[in-house]
């Protein structure tokens, strides 16, 4: 019988084996680490830090908190105040802050912050700040006389919320919640753009992924099975889009698909379509889908190709010799073996599509805009925190997708080429 208790292995000179191994490899490990250090630093600086900063921005906004110290202090002292009827002290603090904003020229940034949850506050703040120095107590009556909006419970809730530097408010806004007189509530249907756009973005990305898969599968198969010389030529055709500017590729679709474009002209010339009934395939969702499918196609072809290339033709032959028809052979033998490629390509295309910006911006028109265009819109308006909150939600959705994928297929089965 062998000894059941494991004995600690030692080297010939009596050191523990594990320690000796670590010692022997420490030089090689240090060198390897130094080699990857530049890349590590690069990734840290250009990827992780900006993402961390973005996530922080999605919770943080000090635009109002910094420019309204008096009100901030009052809110801190009176946590349970009634937003429907704030006392004179609150109004006094507000007027004090408005006067300071006028001096320090921070009216815009403070108004913008409150405006996230209560619309119309920027102009209200500007008018209030201009008048603040001349107002006499009692301030409540004076302010309400200047503009009745100052008494709105929603505004007071908004200012209370904005007096905190860290807030989940931007996520509520990005989830189509709205601050009303009674507090946060679901927005009106016509105003609920964010979740709808999220849904549309995922739907369009799904359609694009399926289209890419359907188009890429035969091409990748051809690439994997053609003789070397021909497949190299085909590979160049597949990679050609990568060497062309994205802008050029997208605008060429405009040339092709616009109402006076090549495709419509041909259809009219062939008599298939009436001159007045030209198809609108550009500046709408169709344009977005067509152009993005084209742009993202190589990202589907390449992972598929790398998987198909290593499937020996003898599998199909074996299946045929065992009595399977060509369809059964494809379905039962070939397709299951391409699954890692299908999964990798789909994940790649879907994730790229969900965050795509330039193509929908150029060819999407009003109807083909995606969530990334909205993020860009908010960034152009300096609504950094809201843009960051939407982006963080997008990131969370993609991570969730990734997690589901890992549970279903397994990340280790991914093959990108």
């Amino acid at each position, binding site marked *: 019988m062998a000894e059941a208790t494991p004995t600690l292995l030692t080297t010939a000179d009596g050191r523990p084996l594990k320690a000796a191994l670590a010692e022997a490899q420490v030089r090689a490990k240090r060198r390897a680490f130094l080699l990857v250090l530049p890349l590590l630093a690069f990734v840290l600086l250009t990827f992780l830090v900006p993402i961390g900063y973005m996530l922080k921005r999605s919770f943080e906004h000090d635009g109002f908190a910094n420019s309204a110290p008096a009100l901030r202090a009052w809110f801190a002292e009176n946590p349970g105040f009634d937003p429907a009827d704030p006392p004179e002290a609150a109004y006094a603090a507000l007027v004090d802050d408005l006067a300071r904003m006028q001096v320090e020229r921070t009216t815009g940034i403070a108004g913008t912050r409150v405006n996230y949850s209560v619309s119309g506050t920027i102009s209200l703040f500007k008018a209030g700040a201009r008048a603040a120095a001349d107002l006499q107590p009692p301030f409540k009556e004076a302010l309400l006389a200047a503009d009745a909006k100052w008494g709105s419970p929603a505004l007071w809730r908004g200012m209370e919320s904005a007096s905190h530097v860290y807030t989940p408010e931007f996520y509520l806004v990005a989830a189509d919640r709205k601050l009303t007189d009674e507090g946060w509530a679901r927005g009106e249907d016509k105003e609920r753009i964010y979740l709808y756009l999220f849904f549309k973005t995922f739907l369009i990305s799904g359609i694009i992924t399926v289209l890419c898969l359907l188009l890429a599968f035969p091409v990748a198969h051809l690439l994997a099975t053609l003789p070397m010389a021909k497949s190299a030529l085909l590979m160049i055709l597949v990679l050609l889009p990568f060497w062309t500017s994205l802008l050029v590729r997208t605008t060429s679709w405009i040339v092709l698909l616009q109402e006076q474009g090549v495709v419509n002209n041909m259809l009219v010339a062939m008599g298939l379509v009436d001159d007045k009934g030209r198809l609108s395939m550009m500046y709408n969702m169709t344009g977005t889908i067509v152009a993005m499918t084209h742009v993202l196609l190589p990202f589907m072809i390449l992972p598929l190709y790398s998987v198909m290339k290593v499937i020996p033709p003898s599998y199909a032959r*074996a299946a045929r*010799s*065992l009595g399977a028809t060509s369809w*059964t052979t494809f379905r039962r033998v070939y397709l299951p073996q391409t699954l890692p490629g299908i999964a990798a390509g789909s994940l790649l295309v879907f994730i790229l599509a969900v965050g795509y910006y330039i193509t929908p911006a150029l060819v999407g028109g009003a109807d083909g805009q995606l969530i990334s265009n909205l993020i860009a819109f908010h960034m152009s308006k300096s609504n950094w925190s809201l843009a960051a909150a939407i982006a963080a939600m997008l990131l969370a959705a993609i991570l969730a997708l990734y997690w589901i994928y890992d549970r279903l297929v397994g990340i280790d089965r991914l093959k990108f080429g």
Partner: protein
Amino acid sequence: MTVEPRNDAYVAFDHVQKSYDGVSLVVKDLNLSIAKGEFLTMLGPSGSGKTTCLMMLAGFETATSGEIRLDGRPINQVPPHKRGIGMVFQNYALFPHMTVGENLAFPLEVRGMSKSDREAKVKRALDMVQMFSFINRRPAQLSGGQQQRIALARALVFDPALVLMDEPLGALDKQLREHMQFEIKHLHENLGITVVYVTHDQGEALTMSDRVAVFNDGKIQQLAPPADLYERPENSFVAQFIGENNKLLGTIEELTGDKALVRLRTGELIDATAVNIKEKGQQTLVSIRPERVEFKPEMMPEGAHTIEAEVVEVIYMGDILRAVLRVAGSDDFVMKMRNTLGQTRLTAGQKIKVGWHPQDARALDP
């Protein structure tokens, strides 16, 4: 050589030609009939057309001209899945995403067999190769030899009458290969199936086959049982391809019936049996097996011509001693001696006389 296909042949190639590029022929006018229950091996160097022939029989390649018949029925137009031929591939081709059991059930499933029948057949086939306990493993979890057994079982599980094997043992190590040769041979005998086996390993061909077709240059060079192939090669390609072989170049000095007297280029005269030699004065290549060369005068037949030889080196190989000799100007003449008690030990530099029975020296086309 050409043998007209017999009408009763189970598998018949009738004037089959194959070209891939329309310029050259890979298979040139192949005529071959294989009897039911036969173990026929296609042997040849790579590029000799043997695998192409197998692929045409399996249906993965189409014959450019000629007809292939299976059990009297032309099968040129029959797709592979309707031929009912079992096939074992060189790299096993076991489906990696299926278990052993699923792999074996696959041909039965596509034939629409019921689950209980499938299970019974799969069990029987796995028992046949002693692999039933591996039914739930995946191919990647098996060793090369085990995978080969599963591939064999899969090719047999749907009871095909004809099984094709494309260098099935090529990837195994020597010991396992020899063991599997024995096992395949036994399966063939027990099941009464017809086997067409492709290999480039002549040892494998000789030990397993009923008949061997030696391929070279798109043609069958000789079709014969293993013993005939080794002992009576019909041309110099077969003589050199099968086994070790000494070759001596010369011209025919005398020709009476099949007895030939050959004058070597260095002037010596040797006896030989004419095989495909037609006339006196013709160039010839005489082939002698190393184990049929004798150097003891008492062992040589009476009246046999002997020639001078010098020992270049003697290699000890355990069961035999292998002497390399300088004979008739070339120093790659090999003689094999059994390592028996009291065997004369030659030393390098020693001068001896060697000879052989005229039947063992075959005068072939050069």
